[in-house]
């Protein structure tokens, strides 16, 4: 299972990549594996304002549904339209083609409080032991 070192992570199994003042967000390899085949992703509209921890969408697999939680506060500037017709991208390339939203970060210090790859890896390990 992959957890790229250049990303930040949340305990809700989202990842975040910082590009200047922009953040790109998706769900991790662990999440897509746990969900199984993703069949649908519900994403916010461009321009929506998000608060950290708030639900910004839903990811559905055959048997289950999971909320998506904003890792940081910000304003949505783009959503991945390709996921409408090809939700399987989330399974196949969760950190690349499976990206979900891009937003302009409004509270920079929130990024710093996210887990790094090592911290997330340890968190996943402890979850799996339960």
């Amino acid at each position, binding site marked *: 299972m992959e957890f790229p070192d250049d990303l930040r992570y949340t305990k809700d199994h989202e990842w975040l990549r910082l590009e200047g003042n922009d953040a790109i967000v998706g769900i991790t390899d662990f999440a897509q594996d746990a969900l199984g085949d993703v069949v649908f992703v519900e994403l916010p509209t461009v321009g929506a304002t998000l608060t950290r921890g708030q639900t910004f969408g839903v990811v*559905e697999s*055959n048997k289950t549904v999971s909320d998506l939680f904003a890792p940081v506060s910000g304003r949505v500037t783009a959503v991945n339209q390709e996921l409408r017709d090809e939700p399987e991208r989330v399974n196949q390339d969760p950190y690349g083609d499976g990206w979900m939203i891009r937003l302009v970060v409004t509270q920079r210090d929130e990024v710093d409080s996210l887990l790094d790859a090592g911290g997330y890896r340890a968190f996943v390990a402890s979850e799996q032991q339960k």
Partner: protein
Amino acid sequence: MSRGTMLEEPLIFERGSAGRPGWSVGPTPAEPALPPELARDDDLAGLPEVGELDTLRHYVRLSQWNYSAATTLYPLGSCTMKYNPVVNEELARLPGLAALHPLVPDALAQGALELIAGLEGALAAVSGLDAVCLQPAAGAQGELLGMMLVRAYHVDRGAPRRRVLIPSSAHGTNPASAALSGYGVTEVPVDRRGLLSAAAVARVMDESVAALMVTNPNTLGLFEEEIEVIAAAVHAHGGLVYMDGANLNAIMGVAKPGDMGVDVMQFNLHKTFSTPHGGGGPGAGPVAVRAPLAEYLPVPRLVRRDGTLGWSDAAPKSVGRLHAFYGNFGILLRAYAYIARLGAPGLAEATRLAVLNANYLRARLRGTYHLPYETPSLHECVFSDRNLQDYDVHTLDVAKRLLDYGFYAPTIYFPLVVKGALMIEPTETESKETLDEFTDALLRIAEEARTDPATVRDAPHRTRVARLDETRAARRPVLRWRRTSRENTEESA
């Protein structure tokens, strides 16, 4: 390619030919000239033109692709797939009942009304509650009504309150119904024995809680031993107790919901009371209430005046209506006939033998399959796939392999509190031989998991179709036949 007696059969829309006349009752008059904004202009293009024999054959062939309760055992937990008495099919078709219009004067429907009154009385007697409404068309709709009644009761006393307590083992309709009635849901965890504890309920019970929703026995098939104390605690804070009656088959003549402290409950006539499942309905979900809630029940109400039965709309506090007429009368009829046939002794015996059958299965399977709770089972037992984990065989695989052995699978992955749950409810109408054949199959499958896991994981092998690609169905939904499309399977997989 056909296999034995399971013949191939396309969609009805792929049969027939243009110009074939359909079933008719006489000469066809000229079509009326409707004004253009009202006239249909596509000539019903797309509807089939098949003919009587080919239509009959089409559906007979389709029927041969189904398992059914009349074919084999359906050990689905909390579904109570007992025998559906065939005599009730004949009784439902008596013209005096089947051809009766719901709006004829009450004086012309006294037989139907006596039947409805009789069923109301019987359900009150079984539940120990005071008033019954037969209108809801299914258990879920009955549950929705139950929540509406809770809300009406509280609104009448000043405020609807905000929350409903639901055990973590509950069926998904419970929180859905609560939400549809404008309530938030607070989950109450079940304890190590799989039961609701009075302490856990007390921790979350206060005056903001409108009701506690319980199932008893619960979805694990276990009797909620603390129910009376729990109900008292809910009542002490002015709340109500709603019971999901899906598992009533376990307690008829053993414990009455009214005695437990239940204020409102729904029944599933297509479970406990033997009406057929129909491939997904129709069912019926009547509701019974304690007297203080009776004034909120839907209209119309059946009342007796001078020995004659009639419908009355005089119920100013009623929540309204849920159905165009009186509910699924044809289903009510079948349940009435079942109860009349069995009588009180038969109903009590049904419960006793249902519990005997389930415990017999539990005893025979427990050495091989993992039993998560030692608490006594009533009419159903829950196992998990933990003992098969080493072979990478899971509950889903066991279920599919059972199909090869000629049985329908138990309920799988429910209740959610047990990982990899296999919930088995045999019902009282199964013979010991059938139960032995079923347990033998499950024991063989456990053995196969060890010696030949691939066969289990790729099951089923002997059914009309192999495992179906549910992901594809959800990602690329094809929800109907279309005139202009070719065979959908010709798209690249």
